[in-house]
């Protein structure tokens, strides 16, 4: 219903700016979203839903150097805070040994040649982007180093909660950051996240050893 003014605005924009600039923003979105619908396949229809953006993802897909407005950032934070779910046990700190394994596991849920990668649980993906225990070489640097995370922050209850929430949905604290909303999107379970929390803040974890 609202498409008509957008289409008219688009036509006017094209007329004003000439042909070299291509379609306007709204038309481009329409064209590209149609492409998304026609350009992918999955072994099960439900997996195609992964291509659909939620509201936060839409906001966080700024093109080029375009910046988030304050209102947009506030909306992403609000959506993130509303997404938090905690483990049934209420315990936010699990087992660091399980967390260590998860942090170095980059597999799970990928789709290739008509098959979904079947595993009991998804890996935590941490190693892909973060420096972990001291001396580990095979680590990425897309995210900040987590080496000595607990040494620097301690393992108090508020730190455990903050750490849990930053893994569950980090956009509550850094809207649209590169960090996946691992809990909110369902990539990890709340229980898995408690093990990652332990891996980060437990004084016995290799993360916090010299």
């Amino acid at each position, binding site marked *: 219903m609202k498409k008509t003014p957008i289409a008219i605005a688009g036509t006017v924009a094209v007329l004003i700016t000439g042909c070299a600039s*291509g379609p306007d923003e709204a038309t481009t979105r329409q064209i*590209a979203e149609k492409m*998304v619908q026609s350009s992918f*396949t999955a072994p099960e229809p439900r997996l195609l839903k*992964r291509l659909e*953006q939620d509201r936060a993802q839409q906001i966080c897909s700024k093109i080029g150097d375009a910046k988030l407005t304050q209102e947009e950032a506030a909306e992403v934070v609000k959506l993130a805070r509303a997404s938090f779910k905690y483990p049934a046990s209420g315990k936010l700190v699990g087992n660091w040994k399980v967390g260590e394994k998860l942090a170095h596991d980059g597999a799970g849920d990928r789709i290739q040649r008509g098959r979904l990668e079947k595993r009991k649980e998804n890996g935590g993906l941490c190693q892909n982007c973060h420096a972990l225990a001291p001396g580990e070489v095979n680590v*990425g640097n*897309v995210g900040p180093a987590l080496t000595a995370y607990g040494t620097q922050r301690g393992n108090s209850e508020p730190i455990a909660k903050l750490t849990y929430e930053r893994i569950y949905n980090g956009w509550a604290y850094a809207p649209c950051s590169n960090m996946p909303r691992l809990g909110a999107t369902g990539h990890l379970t709340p229980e898995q996240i408690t093990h990652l929390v332990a891996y980060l803040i437990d004084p016995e974890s290799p993360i916090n050893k010299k």
Partner: protein
Amino acid sequence: MTRRRFHFIAAACFSVAMAAAHAQSNDPLGVGRQMLEQDNPGDLWIDKGKELFHQKRGPKNASLEQCDFGMGPGKLEGASVRLPRYFADTDKVEDLESRLVTCMVNLQGYKREDVVKRAISPAGSSGSDIEALALYITSRSNGMKMNVSLNHPKEQEMYKAGEYLFFRRSGQTDFGCVTCHGDANKRIRLQDLIHMTSKEGVQGVVSTWPAYRGAHFVVRTMQWRLYDCFWQMRLPELTYLSDASIALTTYLHYQGNGAVTRVPGFKR
């Protein structure tokens, strides 16, 4: 043979020198990279592609010599650096691989589904016809600069859609292309990520595909590269030659205009 051997020894010596230089420049990973680039096995695919191009093949027993990649039938010099581009006969923007498939279907009589099904070869195989042909055709533009134009409205549409898709985040990892390729000097574990929103970075990409992929022992194309990124992002499978793949390629190639083609590239 002797000459090859000489080249190998020269390359080895050069590698050692470069290794020392890299070690000093605090880039231990550069050592291996440098050594591998010296003797690119992908070169073997060029001859294979050339043979396939001129051979009479398919149900119509025809060669690809009449295939028009935009420079006129059979003219390959400078063709790949202007792709993707709009083709009036198909009324579509086509990249190198989709144009190739168009010709294999129209000129040689192959079934489109069959060609597409075999386009991306299994790792460790001798590679697909498309992979060899795409490399051969691109190699005929070696030394030439990427020069994609957006004169046709459909080319502009593709470009704008490609840009939109590059920044579009979705799925359980919230990733878009830009998540990994929007900053300089980033790595996933030890793999360097190319900074594609910089001119230098994107030029390095568009000038080096098709490339020999060390881990797969075959030559891979840009279509494969895009497919593999979506796999890693946990998204559904990018359809070979789909609009989204052409849009992203149009965006990247246009951004990389001016890059000097040097194929086959060498990737880990």
